[in-house]
């Protein structure tokens, strides 16, 4: 992962993000055909989805609740709201207007705190419908330009989206990456969406501008087609540098939409914002206002699960690890923090449980197959010195592969019995005798020299020796 590129001179970066997430409903936002990804084209269509003459939208209650969950998790105010029509022609937009929320969105004025403590304002999080999918044929490599024709699949049309618009509070590409990662974690935690950028269920548009301190924000460009968190950082770094180069060479930035080419690592002009973007918004006459009452809002709020930041804090407290460290972040993101707690509750060593789960449970999901008690037993074996860290790693892999088991028996079957302390001392002495030069250097303070001696002991013990104990014995010998 590249570090945040710094801008030359005193240029400062200003970033705001518009993130679309597809909601995990069973049906579409305004009609009853299925909200399902990856099926045969045009197999989830109905009169509303296709914009057939006479079809009318009816709002999906569950979509509203999921949008409220997102809003409440982002500390927004949930308020009475309306739907507008955004009018524009495009083949994947069946009615030639998108139903969206305009000047009265559902959720307003929230914020998100990055793991490092920086607070990013959330302007709004509103409901809208997704478009269908166009696939371009002919011409070069399926790109829209130079294509011969396009085919349209409306399965995705009408899928409920929430668009989360941040305030322009982001100042580095690293913050932008953290924002997207944290947002994704929150949305997944509240069950609103699987929020997968690679599958398009979470889509990030990045607004980038640069300015000098004490001057107004510069003209911003919107970057589309950013498909990974890493891409968010790279696109911002590229675009900021491009804008500074333009400005420093006396040019001006045009407000435009740009396309991120991940392979080439650059942004290209997609279209300029001119008066062609006249969306003729007006209140959707086929829908009525949505006015969530206090009781409904409180019911949704009360049902919210603990959010990632709180869960990271709790896991850090339990395990003694850093709350913004990688182990805690990864395990919470995978939803395995409850499992770590169960291991601890089963008498396991919490810190070791965190490490094991981080390292061995990447594929295990939020409810791992290995019984918490079995992993607890393994942490105890290691803590008590009955197996070495190296042996524990082998046992962890076996445990995960088998979906659980009696670790003590597995250790015995592998011959992973802890060595008698007397035997170990004898092996250490034998190693010193075999390589007195190394021991002399070690005693003289050259810590590295211990490596050769420990290696000999390990070899002689066929890996059964506990490296930490060997080092401790060596230390005693050196002081003797």
């Amino acid at each position, binding site marked *: 992962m590249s570090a945040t590129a710094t801008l030359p001179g005193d240029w400062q970066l200003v970033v705001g993000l518009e993130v679309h997430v597809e909601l995990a*409903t*069973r*049906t579409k936002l305004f009609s*009853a*055909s*299925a909200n399902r990804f990856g099926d*045969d*084209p*045009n*197999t*989830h*269509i*109905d*009169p509303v989805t*296709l914009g057939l003459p006479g079809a009318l939208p*009816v*709002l*999906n*209650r*569950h*979509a*509203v609740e999921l949008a409220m969950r997102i809003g409440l998790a982002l500390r927004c105010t949930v308020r*009475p709201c309306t739907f507008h029509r955004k009018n524009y*022609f*495009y*083949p994947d937009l069946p009615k030639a207007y998108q139903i969206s929320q305009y000047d009265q969105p559902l959720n307003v004025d929230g914020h998100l705190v990055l793991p490092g403590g920086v607070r990013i304002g959330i302007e709004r999080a509103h409901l809208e419908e997704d478009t269908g999918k*166009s*696939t*371009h044929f*002919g*011409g070069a490599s399926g790109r*829209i*330009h130079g*294509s*011969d*024709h*396009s*085919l*349209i*699949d*409306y399965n995705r049309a009408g899928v409920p989206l929430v668009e989360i618009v941040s305030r322009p509070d982001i100042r580095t590409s690293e913050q932008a990456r953290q924002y997207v990662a944290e947002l994704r974690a929150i949305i997944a935690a509240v069950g609103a969406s699987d929020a997968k950028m690679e599958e398009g269920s979470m889509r990030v548009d990045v607004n980038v501008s640069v300015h000098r301190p004490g001057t107004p924000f510069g003209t911003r460009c919107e970057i589309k087609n950013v498909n990974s968190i890493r891409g968010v950082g790279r696109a911002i770094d590229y675009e900021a540098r491009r804008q500074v180069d333009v400005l420093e060479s006396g040019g001006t930035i045009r407000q435009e939409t740009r396309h991120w080419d991940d392979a080439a690592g650059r942004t290209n002009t997609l*279209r*300029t914002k*001119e*008066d*062609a973007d*006249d969306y*003729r918004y*007006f*209140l959707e*006459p086929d*829908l*009525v*206002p*949505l*006015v*969530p009452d206090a009781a409904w809002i409180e019911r949704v709020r009360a049902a919210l699960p603990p959010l990632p930041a709180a869960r990271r804090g709790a896991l850090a407290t339990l395990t003694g690890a850093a709350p913004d460290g990688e182990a805690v972040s990864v395990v919470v993101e995978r939803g395995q923090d409850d499992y770590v707690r169960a291991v601890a509750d089963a008498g396991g060593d919490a810190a070791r449980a965190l490490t094991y789960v981080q390292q061995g449970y990447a594929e295990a999901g939020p409810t791992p197959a290995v019984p918490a008690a079995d992993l607890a037993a393994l942490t105890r074996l290691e803590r008590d010195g009955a197996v070495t860290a190296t042996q524990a790693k082998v046992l962890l892999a076996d445990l995960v592969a088998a979906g659980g088991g009696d670790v003590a028996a597995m250790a015995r079957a592998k011959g992973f019995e802890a060595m008698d302390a007397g035997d170990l001392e004898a092996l250490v002495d034998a190693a010193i005798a075999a390589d007195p030069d190394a021991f002399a250097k070690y005693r003289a303070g050259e810590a590295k020299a211990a490596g050769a001696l420990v290696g000999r002991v390990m070899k002689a013990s066929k890996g059964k020796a506990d490296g930490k104990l060997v080092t401790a014995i060596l230390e005693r010998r050196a002081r003797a």
Partner: protein
Amino acid sequence: MSETDRAGELSPEVVAKVARLARLALGDDEVSRMTAQLAGMLAHFRDVDALDLADVRPMSQPYELVNVLRDDEPAPSLDRDEVLASAPAAEDGRFRVPPIVGLEG
């Protein structure tokens, strides 16, 4: 867009631009005919300038309902073949359209 003046003069340029926005191919003669007709109507519509509307709340819908919601229960899809049979052009289970270019103007 350029301006209409208070007398309701509507330029053919504005009308041509509106036609592009509405995706209507109009010939020059249609544009000039439409310009005259629309200008006449807009002039007539100036009658409301006599009203004081400053404190009037806009009315978008006649009957004030709120919170009309449906349960998240799926219903079967329309039959794809039946739907595509009505399409001007279809291919491979999808709707076929000419190349998507020039959508910015």
